[in-house]
């Protein structure tokens, strides 16, 4: 690329253009090299974070397009008609091919163009100033390399999107396959737990309780895996529900599963309004948040919760008195498959990928609400879930 840029500058000067124009070309080309190089490094560093990779590639594409616009504008001033004639087949080639192949096609087109001009000169006997040809022939390949880079960026975006879709489809498939036997186990445990035909001895009952808790954990992990898919909540089916009743039900269920019913403290609710939400998904959000509150606090410490409302919003507050989280930990909790989480798992130092709060946050956003975490070392964590209050005529609203 630098060689082409050098040749381009030389030929520009040869063709009678001034030094300022040549320097402008040089700056554009070297700038393009540096910017594209930096983007390539950033994309590489982003590793598994497909969303960041995609954003970077989009930014790179935008810059490339802007630069291509500047170059074309500057070139148009020199030899507009030749540019159009010469560029036409090569732009077409760039749309079909990409990268260095465009340079090859550009060179072939150039050679054909020169042959045609020379043949025309031979046939007509007219004399043509051949130095005018050097600009399109030697400088344009540099421009088309830029064009090739643009095509490469486009292709990169397509690859990332295809990878993202394949990855999510794979996760969904795995999660669905895992959900089926997990539900069967839930059913069997429930049947054992509620069996009226045989009296269970205390030890067997204890095993059943343990089995039930582990199976619930596994089911929630599978649900979180499913709910963490990016396009999962584009079409939410909302139904009218009493949030306070749902919160009470989930709080009791999770406290019972963690054997911490005595630690659960309900603040008086004064809420009367209904919200329009997906009860299945909101149930998962509440299960994740309550489970974290019990998991990261000591038995005997209170887990408090309250449901409040103001004129626009309904709010659920869940507070534990555990060890709390730093700002950095909170940020990681709200990311999907963090590098830290993956590295931790590879090192055998982590208990999960931390998908629960990420999925919860995604679900709240899809409802037009939010999930906030307030936490500090040794002061515990408060999670605040907010949902908009909606009018009855909004109940058919979906996010599609």
């Amino acid at each position, binding site marked *: 690329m630098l060689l082409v840029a050098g040749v381009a500058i030389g030929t520009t000067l040869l063709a009678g253009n001034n030094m300022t124009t040549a320097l402008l070309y040089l700056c554009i080309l070297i700038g393009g090299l540096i910017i594209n190089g930096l983007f390539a490094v950033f994309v590489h560093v982003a590793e598994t974070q497909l969303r960041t990779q995609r954003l970077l590639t989009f930014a790179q594409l935008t810059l490339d397009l802007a630069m291509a616009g500047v170059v074309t504008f500057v070139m148009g001033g020199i030899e507009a008609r030749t540019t159009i004639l010469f560029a036409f087949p090569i732009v077409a080639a760039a749309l079909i091919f990409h990268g260095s192949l465009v340079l090859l096609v550009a060179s072939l087109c150039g050679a054909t163009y020169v042959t045609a001009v020379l043949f025309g000169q031979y046939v007509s006997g007219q004399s043509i100033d051949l130095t005018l040809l050097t600009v399109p022939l030697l400088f344009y390949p540099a421009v088309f390399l830029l064009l090739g880079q643009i095509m490469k960026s486009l292709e990169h975006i397509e690859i990332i999107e295809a990878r993202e879709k394949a990855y999510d489809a794979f996760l969904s498939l795995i999660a669905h396959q895992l959900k089926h036997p997990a539900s069967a186990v*839930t059913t069997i445990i*429930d049947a054992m737990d509620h069996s009226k035909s045989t009296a269970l001895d205390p030890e067997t009952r204890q095993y059943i309780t343990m089995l039930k808790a582990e199976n619930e954990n596994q089911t929630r992990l599978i649900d979180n895996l499913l709910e963490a898919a990016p396009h999962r909540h584009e079409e*939410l089916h909302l139904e009218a529900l009493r949030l306070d009743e749902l919160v009470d039900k989930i709080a009791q269920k999770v406290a019972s599963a963690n054997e911490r019913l005595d630690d659960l403290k309900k603040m008086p609710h004064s809420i009367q309004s209904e919200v329009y939400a997906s009860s*299945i998904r909101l149930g998962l959000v509440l299960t994740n948040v309550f489970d974290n509150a019990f998991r990261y606090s000591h038995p005997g410490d209170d887990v408090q919760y309250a449901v409040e409302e103001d004129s626009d919003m309904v709010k659920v507050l869940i507070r534990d008195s555990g060890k709390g989280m730093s700002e950095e930990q909170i940020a990681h909790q709200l990311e999907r498959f963090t590098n830290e989480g993956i590295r931790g798992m590879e090192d055998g130092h982590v208990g999960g990928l931390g998908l629960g709060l990420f999925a919860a946050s995604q679900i709240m956003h899809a409802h037009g609400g939010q999930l906030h975490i307030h936490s500090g070392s040794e002061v515990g964590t408060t999670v605040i879930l907010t949902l908009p209050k909606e009018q009855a005529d909004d109940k058919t609203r979906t996010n599609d």
Partner: protein
Amino acid sequence: MTKRVLMIEDFPVMQKFYKNALEQEGYQLDVADDGEVALRMVAETDYDVILLDMLLPNVNGIEFLERFSSRPPQTKIIVLSDFTDESRIKRARELGVSDYLVKSDYPPSELVKKLNELDGVSATTDDAKGQS
């Protein structure tokens, strides 16, 4: 009066345990392995409640709902499935499903509670209508 329930479910483990739990509570439960068989059964019998799985051989849950168009007004259709895709929930609701339940949240004991609750709710609603 004994409530007649049809469970459309192809997984034998689910059939067995839900059947036990519901029959212990006094429900009369019939089971269909797939949507095709279920369509024949609903043509012959008026059920009070239909418990419908979504993933079924031959005729799946959504296809069953589409083809079971002339249903008696008292028949409540409740989906009991592992699938929680919003598009599926939305379509099922459009086709007249009254509740969409997730199997892991509604094992037999919870489903029995839900059905008893629905009975209570409908009785109250009927009473209220009668008074107005």
